[in-house]
């Protein structure tokens, strides 16, 4: 216990270096900009910035990525409130009450509520990060080949359903990812598989693949649409603050949304877009001022924004401990981890504990930067959210090329990135799930190695796959995983529907814009 405390303390000291603080501020600002631009999602932003972190120290790199993540999730609320277009799907529920407040001339108050709730949601979610991750990581020490096989299957069943409209299409996307993950040297016997040259020996570079799938494909999608000016952001004059009384009112809401968002985050597979609706609905159910809902309720804004930022800390837990990123943003973050030569699991809390706790401390500090930068910069960010696609498209394209080339300084990486960009574009045209491909790329080799090694140790006896309690627990989770999309879809639809009933708005339309 004392060890952990001293590690936590040392983590804060390490995180407080000027360079780390600078990176936090920069990351948060970058994240907010990406988040508040409709069309750029959090995953895409983190993917674009990923190559820039390669040369940094692991903890600094991770802090930057974490800062972009938190900033982007909050940033989505700015455009949701001011121009009624959620910058990321995670802020869809914020648009309901937030825009109503803007219409009533309370935009400043709405933005303050969003920022204040995001801060508390994110900060509170760090508690679970600190306490659950080491415990879960310790558990993985018991994981042997068979358990890793089931773990990867669990991850695959969950991702298959997530954020795709049909389970079948999700599974198809996952299978495609698995197929691509077999490229390269076979992990057991070293046989060359589907390798035109030794460039592919270590498989498809996950970072290039995800820059292509998330960022480049978005460029194609944006380029295809007719470029039109976005709605003018409302200029607002009211003060950005809340009275003491108002803060007291939203306090229980923030607390409830924290619990909801955090749990949703820990569950691999459910992301911030579900959490915001659940947080919003719960805030309405418990509210003493139900009559304000639909007309611009600060509780509604707080409920949605605290929940989606509470997801951030929670979703890092399965990523860092089990190596199962629950959603696309953490999948990208895990790419950053792997590139730094770090493997999720017990090592992060043993050999690399100082690095991990520095990252945690940085993640806590990032919340404060988010509060400060969010409050000070809102007016400026509001203008950025209207940036024309004519400027956005070339900027993102350049970043995609530079980013993928910077990894190894190999021109082949750009070819791979572009290939996946086209693939991602086509997949999204067919409603397939690009996040599932990335996750399958990561989980495929773990599963293959687990299965084949388990069968080697038992000399071909399949019983080894069912030989331990952990195996059975994971198998049970797989079943839950397959069924969860059906449940989650219903939950999200119901929550969205309930929210819509209060306002009479078509939320499908709101979330349609950006489906990454």
């Amino acid at each position, binding site marked *: 216990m004392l060890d952990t405390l001293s590690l936590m303390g040392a983590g804060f000291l390490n995180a407080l270096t000027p360079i780390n603080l600078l990176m936090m501020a920069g990351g948060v600002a970058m994240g907010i900009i990406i988040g508040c631009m409709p069309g750029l999602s959090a995953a895409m932003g983190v993917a674009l910035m990923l190559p820039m972190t390669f040369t940094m120290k692991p903890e600094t790199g991770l802090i930057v990525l974490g800062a972009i993540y938190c900033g982007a999730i909050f940033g989505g609320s700015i455009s949701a409130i001011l121009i009624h277009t959620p910058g990321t799907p995670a802020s869809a529920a914020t648009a309901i009450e937030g825009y109503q407040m803007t219409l009533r001339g309370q935009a400043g108050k709405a933005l303050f509520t969003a920022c204040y709730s995001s801060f508390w949601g994110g900060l509170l979610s760090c508690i679970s990060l600190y306490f659950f991750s080491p415990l879960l990581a310790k558990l993985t020490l018991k994981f042997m080949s068979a358990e890793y096989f089931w773990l990867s299957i669990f991850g695959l069943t969950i991702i298959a359903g997530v954020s795709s409209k049909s389970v079948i299409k999700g599974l198809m996307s996952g299978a495609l990812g698995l197929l691509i993950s077999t490229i390269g040297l076979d992990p057991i016997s070293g046989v060359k598989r589907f390798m035109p040259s*030794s460039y592919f020996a270590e498989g498809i570079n996950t970072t290039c693949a995800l820059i292509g799938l998330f960022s480049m494909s978005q460029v194609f999608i944006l380029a295809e649409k007719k470029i039109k000016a976005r709605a003018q952001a409302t200029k607002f004059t009211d003060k950005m603050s809340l009275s003491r009384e108002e803060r007291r009112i939203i306090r229980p809401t923030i607390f409830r949304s924290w619990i909801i968002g955090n749990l949703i985050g820990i569950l691999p597979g459910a992301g911030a877009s579900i959490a915001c609706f659940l947080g919003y609905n719960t805030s309405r159910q418990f509210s003493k001022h139900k009559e304000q809902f639909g007309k611009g309720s600060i509780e509604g804004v707080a409920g949605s924004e605290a929940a989606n930022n509470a997801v951030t800390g929670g979703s890092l837990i399965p990523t860092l401990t089990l190596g199962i990123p629950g959603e696309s943003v953490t999948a990208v973050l895990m790419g950053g981890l792997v590139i730094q030569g770090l493997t999720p699991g017990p090592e992060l809390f043993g050999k690399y504990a100082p690095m991990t706790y520095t990252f945690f401390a940085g993640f806590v500090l990032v919340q404060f930067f988010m509060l400060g930068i969010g409050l000070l910069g809102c007016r400026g960010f509001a203008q950025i959210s209207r940036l024309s696609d004519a400027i956005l498209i070339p900027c993102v394209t350049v970043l995609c090329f530079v980013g993928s080339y910077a990894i190894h300084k190999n021109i082949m990486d750009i070819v791979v990135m572009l290939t996946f960009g086209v693939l991602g574009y086509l997949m999204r045209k067919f409603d397939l799930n690009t996040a599932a491909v990335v996750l399958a790329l990561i989980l495929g080799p773990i599963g293959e190695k687990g299965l084949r090694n388990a069968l080697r140790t038992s000399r*071909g006896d399949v019983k080894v796959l069912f030989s331990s309690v952990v195996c059975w627990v994971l198998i049970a989770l797989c079943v839950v995983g397959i069924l969860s999309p059906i449940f989650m879809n219903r939950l999200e639809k119901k929550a969205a529907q309930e929210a819509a009933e209060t306002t009479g708005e078509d939320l499908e339309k709101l979330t349609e814009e950006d489906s990454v």
Partner: protein
Amino acid sequence: MKKVLALALALCLVFALAAVASADWAPNGPVSVIVSYKAGSGTDNTARILAKYAEKYVGQTLVIENVEGGSGSIGWSQLASADPDGQTIGFINLPNFSSSIVNEMGTYTIDDFAAICNHVTETSIVIVRADDDRFPDLQALVDAAKKEEWSIKASTNGPQASNHIGAQAFANSAEFTYIDIPQGGTADQLLSLRGAEADFAVVKLADIAGQEAEYRILAVFNDERLPELPDVPTLKELGYYDGWLGSSRCIAAPAGVSEDVIAFYEAAFKAAMEDPEYIAAAEQAGMATDFKDAAATAELIAQQQTFAESLAEGFWYEEY
């Protein structure tokens, strides 16, 4: 007349310059040092420490270039095809380099490289779990493995990676069979052993630094006992694999460089590795510095190549 004089003068100058160059070659600009693994990897760390202290003796900046991918083969291909003008040198990692040639990962062979010197050497050891009472010593392990075919399992750090080669060399020399369980790296390899999935493992001594209490070291792959492990027998004294095995980081230039280039770098790196400041830095980083001259390094590369090729024809565990 003037023209003839000028020509004669120019000729003299050319000869003089040529004479200077051959007597005392030195790089005429920053030297590229190709490391075939990513920045921050083990080889990269040790290479950067050496480069820092060698600049004084080389007289030029040493620029580390990380050319990663293809299990190292992309960097080695680049080194093999670089201009042999002495401006590009690089690190070769044994035995991964040897395996990459056996598996035809690139188009190069050992003849495409000219050895300069050896930098770091780590020796392999055979370990079991400290609480595993079945194997108090190496003989007990060998006996158990011989009693029943394919009954003993060893975790490795990847197919035909250094620790797999070590386990295979041990098994070949003791004439027993075992099942190898390839993991992604040494950390996972050790986890697999600790979780009792594997019975033994071959690792490098430095891999278990800080967790020595978890394992029992049964033998070392060396000609004589290691000074830091005086109680641990060598495989040679027990009658098995007779020689050194482990991993080596050698420095080489593309084949075709002149003898002077080799001699220059050999002397420069030797001086750097004897520099007290370097020695202090190396000690702090836990690097096992082991200078070998060009001839000895070339011999080591050739010997490891022959060995890797002999293993490739040996037996690997066939999958069910």
